[in-house]
């Protein structure tokens, strides 16, 4: 190990870095991982890991791979610039047809996640049980426990959905910021009503 490091130095290779270590782990794992899990593996503070992820994101600029962030998790993917080349290499045809109801439901979950099924039903005006199940089976959305209500779940987009849309974070959705604000306002008005 010592010999190896000195070798590296002779070639002018920089010393191991936390961002490099995280990149290696993400490449090795080949699936989204939680930041809290990463902290445990590299034995560093949340701040250190957050900074290193920021560094990694910068170092990937202009490269063939990108860092995706979604909630508490991160993953590596190919950069959007090369989607055309890679699409030709992809053997199994990806089904892009999700239907009108699927699109409607996906949009709600993308812009308003985390969101309960009751809230999705309210906005769509119809029962969404089956469409939500189908979207989960296709890996486009996932559910997590609702901290406020043990009987219901919260739904959110997956990394697969972000990859499908070609964005590295949910904030990259068009009009995301303004929509969140609008929704917040709507919810507050609604709450006043209910009281």
């Amino acid at each position, binding site marked *: 190990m010592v010999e190896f490091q000195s070798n590296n130095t002779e070639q002018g290779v920089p010393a191991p870095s936390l961002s490099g270590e995280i990149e290696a782990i993400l490449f090795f794992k080949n699936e989204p991982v939680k930041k809290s899990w990463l902290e445990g593996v590299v034995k560093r503070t949340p701040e250190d890991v957050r900074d290193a992820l920021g560094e990694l994101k910068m170092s990937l600029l202009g490269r063939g791979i990108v860092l995706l962030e979604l909630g508490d998790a991160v993953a*590596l993917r190919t950069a959007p610039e090369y989607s055309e080349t890679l699409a030709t290499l992809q053997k199994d045809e990806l089904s*892009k047809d999700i239907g009108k109801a699927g699109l*409607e439901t996906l*949009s*709600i979950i993308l812009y308003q996640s985390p969101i309960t099924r009751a809230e999705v039903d309210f*906005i769509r005006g119809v029962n969404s049980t089956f469409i939500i199940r189908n979207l989960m089976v296709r890996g486009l959305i996932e559910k997590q426990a609702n901290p406020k209500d043990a009987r219901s779940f919260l739904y959110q987009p997956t990394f697969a959905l972000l990859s499908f849309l*070609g964005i590295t974070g949910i904030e990259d959705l068009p009009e995301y910021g303004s929509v969140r604000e609008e929704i917040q306002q709507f919810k507050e008005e609604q709450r006043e*009503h209910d009281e």
Partner: protein
Amino acid sequence: MEVVAETTKDFRVKLEGFEGPLELLLSLIEKRKLPINDVSLASVTDDYIKHIEASGHFPLSQTSHFILIASTLLLIKSKSLLPTLDLTPEEEESIESLEKRLKLYKRNKELSLHVSTMLGKRMLFEAHEAKRTKAEVVFSPSEDASIDALKESILGVLKRLPKAKLVAEAVVRKVVSIEDMIENLTKRITQKLSMSFSEFSNMGKAEKVEVIVGFLAMLELAKQGIINLTQEKTFADITMESDSVGVPKYE
């Protein structure tokens, strides 16, 4: 009854793709290039009811959603025809809420256009699964994977399999209560109409009376639409009601 005959068949086809009531309502308003408010909602009420009426069989699980919104539309329309009609605070609220929901729905529809244009266009790909030879795989059983735990797990899976029928049953009960609501509304309008007859019999108001009578006929129509979806018991009500609607003594 001619109104029923002229309804489009397109609607039925679209419904099979689970098009919801807000979608229908929005398309009716947009077809007339109207903004979303109580006036436009009142003006598309007839169209909306006709659509429901015409589509005799759409998925039962979606029926109540269509009818709940129909009932709110009927309230809006009643109020627009008879401004003196008193609405309960709950009714006022459901009207206001429908307007807001429709606006929110419209907004989401705009957003879904973004999503639709982006989907699959500039995809990010994940790495393929690393290839492993059998020799490289080290058998690593899990302490928690005992045969009993696996049995419990599969039984849990079976228990959680969705049952389509349960959803449908819960819906029918709601529909019945909306029927009560329509009945109640009809009664209130008929009463109001006789009370404020002097107001309507003024010059130039005769047309309005006709509109209201037409509206009452439509409530009837709505009921029949609903009844097609529920049970026989309600058929009896219809016959009774049609007698009272045939009271256009103000003509």
